[in-house]
């Protein structure tokens, strides 16, 4: 039976994991907010992993971080002005993506200044978010949920919004995927072959903004970046084949997200901590695995030589 009751975050009696897996799951799934959190987690993990994979490939992690920061003033303005936070997230993230795309220059020159601009814009965006929150009500509790995530309050309506936006993002990415890959790996040759590199870059930033806005609602503004960058970086450690590493990064993101939800259901610690913790553990394991494989690869010819 599914109930719509959301327990208070301060509720002292958190559920206990009993190791009777089936009963535990039935228990967990009897809460609508948990079911919704799992659905939202599925959508967010898939979209983030796919978009994040391209982000890592294109070395746009700093831009991704800046976009994730833009989500905070958007959400807090929505809270202050009383409209839907989803609207605030999407509006600000997509607008910020367009601003970054407009600011991008052709040459690599002026890297120092460009990073100074990005840093200032980032800090100012966060300062605005802080202002909106403090204008709304005192400072207690307000920002923490927006910054670090809160999965207890996800409604069915929000899940539908997430699904629609996620589907649009993935559909656009499926259409532009091949030329985007080409433009990311070798922009000059792609431009020479008539691929609209700059247009694709702008389009991709907008997709990145939309995906950031989606994920912010689950992991919070500050930890979105984790869900985008860590699974993709892990997958690209493990394999060089594009299709396989894309699939791998989706699976890793999904595993981190769902495992994080289960852990956060049983423990009083924030979801963002578990999601980043699991994802990062996989990242470290992937590194160790690669080192071990490289070490084995170096040893192998030596052994053959000694056997001969």
């Amino acid at each position: 039976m599914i109930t719509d009751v959301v327990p208070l975050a301060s509720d002292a009696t958190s559920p206990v994991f009993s190791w009777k897996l089936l009963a535990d799951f039935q228990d967990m799934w009897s809460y609508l907010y948990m079911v919704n959190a799992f659905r939202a987690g599925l959508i967010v993990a898939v979209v983030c992993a796919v978009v994040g994979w391209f982000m890592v490939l294109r070395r746009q992690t700093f831009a991704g971080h800046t976009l994730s920061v833009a989500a905070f003033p958007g959400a807090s303005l929505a809270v202050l002005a009383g409209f839907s936070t989803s609207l605030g997230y999407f509006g600000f993230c997509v607008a910020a993506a367009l601003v970054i795309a407009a600011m991008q220059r052709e040459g690599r020159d002026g890297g120092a200044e460009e990073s100074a601009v990005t840093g200032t814009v980032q800090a100012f965006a966060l300062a605005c978010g802080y202002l909106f929150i403090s204008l709304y009500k005192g400072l207690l509790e307000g920002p923490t949920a927006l910054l670090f995530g809160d999965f207890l309050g996800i409604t069915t309506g929000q899940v539908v919004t997430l699904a629609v936006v996620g589907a649009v993002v993935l559909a656009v990415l499926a259409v532009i995927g091949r030329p985007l890959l080409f433009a990311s790996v070798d922009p000059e040759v792609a431009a020479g072959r008539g691929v609209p590199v700059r247009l694709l870059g702008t389009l991709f930033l907008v997709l990145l903004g939309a995906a950031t806005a989606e994920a912010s609602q689950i992991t919070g503004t500050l930890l979105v970046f984790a869900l985008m960058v860590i699974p993709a970086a892990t997958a690209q450690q493990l394999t060089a084949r594009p299709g396989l590493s894309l699939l791998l990064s989706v699976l890793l993101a999904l595993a981190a997200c769902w495992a994080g939800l289960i852990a956060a259901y049983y423990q009083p610690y924030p979801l963002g901590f578990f999601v980043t913790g699991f994802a990062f553990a996989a990242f470290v394991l992937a590194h160790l695995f690669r080192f071990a494989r490289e070490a084995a690869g170096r040893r192998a010819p030596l052994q053959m030589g000694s056997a001969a």
Partner: protein
Amino acid sequence: MSTVISQAFFQHALLAGTFIALACGLVGYFLVLRAQIFTGDALSHVAFTGAMAALAGGYDLRLGLFAATIGVGLLIGGLGRRGRADDVVIGSVFAWILGLGAFFLTVYTTSRSGAQGGAGTSVLFGSIFGLHGNQITVAVAVAGAVCLIVLLIARPLLFATLDEAVAAARGVPVRVLGFMFLALVGACAGEATQAVGSLLLLGLLAAPAGAAIRLTDRPYRALALSAALAVAEMWGGLLLSAAAPKLPPSFAIMAVATAVYAATFLVRPARAAHPATA
């Protein structure tokens, strides 16, 4: 407004803020010039986690701030030269560190009875009007020391920044200077977090330096201008916040700094703005 200015908390904020801004302006100039803004961003996340870990463990918040930021600053210096730690690795590590910070925040607020719920917020966004007593003394002393060291190593550091290969060939200890500089950035980050908070710290490091670099091509003049702008922006922000109590001081400081930086784009068009490395 005059009643606010005459009060002790405002004068404390003005005193500590002046020194903090001075240190940020000087360190920030080199940070921008060396294109290490991403490092500054990373250290701001570390500052949050360090402070929260100290609170959760029952120690003084400042202990965690300085230990974490200076330690990680040195660590980045150690990893960076070998060329293995790129943006993606730094991004992955700091995303996780921030998650860890969220964990310590929860540990602190749930396990310690009598813990203030606003502690996390004040570390994230600063509480310059809440400084008192020995906090002021420590702030002034640390910021003063940072300024002094920056000024002492300014000449070789500038040389090492602008032309690393030639500097190394002339016997400038480029690597040691790099380490020292990152330790200074760490100390500065730990310091400024108390004033503007770990999330907004990046703005205080980047905005005055970015503006100074746009306004003049000459290195020493830009360094002095960066420090002067940082102090002026700090004062402007504090006064603005005193005049309009609804504006939190960190927001006001950041708003003034951003406005000044934006104004430099009007003074000097974007295209001709990068011969500063000459």
